[in-house]
């Protein structure tokens, strides 16, 4: 079956003064229509870079060194800028963390909303204006007519993020990439935005790649979860499995380190140390210096991705100890 999005063995390098450093190391995943994949990780895990690369939006000094990104079977790696531009905001859209930096401060909301409609859908100005008004209403903005003529600075953070979402959805994309879209928002507003993205996903049947560091948000919105650490995918599974039966020590640590609002007696567990920097070469497993279960093999040999069950995999040598009779899949 053809996947909506299929990423295989993606390697992204950054050219720095010290040489090339690998920010994303051999990442593979796939996404179907109507599905939400959450990419979770702490800063420096490579989650944002992975999401940016999907649309060819890597910074100047970043390159996809290896691997493939296929959208509905079409290869995106190596595609010309012009061809990518036809996809952006049309078939694939993106929303960012800070809507104020993503919106142009000198143009009205209406102008910015109409732009993709005029470019991608050949609508006339009047039609585009009508459609943008409907879009603003759809994302829950009161008085859409009035808002069309306002500038980004006149809106609150939550409203700006709604405008961004309206822009992203203008051409009814089949894939939405959301990079920490609610991180800068207050919880009451975050709740509104998460509901909105979830409702629209159902309505339009889009696939959503949602990048976040908040485990609570993951539990709310994800179908599938991919946990990243220091540029690598360490565990993937459906959302229930990841929360109820995590296998990788990092996933376990991450879940136990989040202070729970419903638990007053919780003892926070600590993952010692901090995330290695991208150009730190670590022998063996990249997590072993912080891992409480590290064995000798972890210091010497890099663990392959091992299947725990059909849709659950973990990059950890412990898997081999746990179920040595199951077959292993090397990546």
């Amino acid at each position, binding site marked *: 079956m053809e996947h909506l999005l299929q990423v295989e063995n993606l390697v992204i390098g950054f050219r720095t003064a010290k040489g090339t450093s690998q920010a994303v190391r051999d990442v593979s995943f796939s996404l179907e229509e109507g599905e939400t994949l959450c990419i979770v990780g*702490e*800063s420096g895990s490579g989650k944002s870079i992975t999401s940016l690369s999907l649309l060819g939006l890597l910074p100047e000094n970043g390159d996809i060194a290896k691997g493939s990104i296929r959208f509905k079977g079409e290869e995106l790696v190596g595609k010309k800028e012009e061809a990518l531009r036809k996809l952006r905001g049309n078939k694939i859209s993106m929303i960012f963390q800070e809507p104020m930096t993503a919106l142009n401060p000198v143009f009205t909301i209406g102008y910015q909303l109409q732009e993709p409609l005029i470019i991608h859908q050949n609508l006339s100005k009047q039609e585009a204006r009508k459609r943008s008004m409907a879009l603003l209403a759809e994302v829950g903005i*009161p008085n859409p007519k009035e808002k069309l003529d306002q500038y980004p600075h006149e809106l*609150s*953070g*939550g*409203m700006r993020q709604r405008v961004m979402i309206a822009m992203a959805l203008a051409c009814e994309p089949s894939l939405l990439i959301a990079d920490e879209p609610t991180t800068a928002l*207050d*919880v*009451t*507003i*975050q*709740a*509104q935005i*998460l509901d909105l993205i979830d409702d629209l996903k159902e309505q339009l049947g889009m696939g959503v790649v949602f990048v976040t*560091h*908040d*485990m*609570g*948000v*993951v*539990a*709310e919105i*994800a179908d599938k979860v991919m946990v990243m650490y220091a540029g690598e995918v360490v565990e993937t599974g459906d*959302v*229930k499995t990841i*929360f*109820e039966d995590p296998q990788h020590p990092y996933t376990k*640590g*991450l*879940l136990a*380190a*989040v*202070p*729970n*609002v*419903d638990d*007053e007696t*919780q003892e*926070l*567990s*600590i*993952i*010692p140390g*901090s*995330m290695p920097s991208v150009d730190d070469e670590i022998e063996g497993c990249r997590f072993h210096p912080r891992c409480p279960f590290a064995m000798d093999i972890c210091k010497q040999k890099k663990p392959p991705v091992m299947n725990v069950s059909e849709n659950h995999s973990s990059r950890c040598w412990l898997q081999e100890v746990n179920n040595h009779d199951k077959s292993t899949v090397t990546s």
Partner: protein
Amino acid sequence: MTNQQSLLEVEDLKTYYPIKGGILNRTKANVKAVNDVSLEVYEGETLGIVGESGCGKSTLGRTLLGLEKKTGGTIHFRGEDIGDLSEKKLKKYKKDMQMIFQDPFASLNPRQKIGNALEEIFIIHTSLSKSERKERVRKLLTEVGLKEEHYDRFPHEFSGGQRQRIGIARAIALNPSLIVCDEAVSALDVSVQAQIITLLKELQAKYHLTYLFISHDLGVVRHISDRVLVMYLGKTVELGTTEQIYNNALHPYTKALLSSIPRPIPGRKRERIKLQGDLPSASNYPTGCPFHTRCPIATAQCKEVVPEWREMEAGHFVACHEI
């Protein structure tokens, strides 16, 4: 938390920022960042202050430390009125009251070694000799989980978590009794955040510190606080023990806030109290109860009359007509 000695007593505290305009640059209106806040902070406790951005929680913390000028009300520290002291007289108290900021990197000089930056505190506030000062700094560094050899490093050589440790070292250097932590762990990754929370708790137990823990993260606040204060648009809406606030919230805003937090339990049915709209801007202050524009149970009375700050049960205060 009863029968405790109060360290800080605040009454009717107001911090307004004027909005100026017109040809004569007259004050047209005020942004009421902190509006009639009264509270007591007990010795050795952690008082969590929560609320959304713009609710005045940071301004409250800064006003208490004298970093913002108050517009009205009184602040008593250990029984003494410190609200109207001159900068010079306040210096004595500043040693006793410290602050930990969200981004310690912004408050460090990038060209100054960490050891020298920390040493400056002792140059200003003590009469120790150079070798004694160095010794104190080294002790401080190990106290917060850094190494002595970090003395000669520059700020950029530290990770986010380590920089926050430096911020903490600076705050505890003069053995203060009160520390205001303003979003001290908000910028950190969860694994590092847990380390810093644990460090703060250890230091509190060791030195009998009192914390005002300002944060928008209700999970972290529950974890660290003895009592919690909820603010909305410069007003206090609810105050109680952590138990009272999290298990028996009374104010509709507190309830909505708690129900909005995404819980790390997949498939859990959402029973959110949805708030409509955004926080009104503080310059366009609603009449009556500040929350009535978004409140699901607001009545006509709420639009007109400011609700009183009432004690519902021992230590549990709330400002709402409908309770």
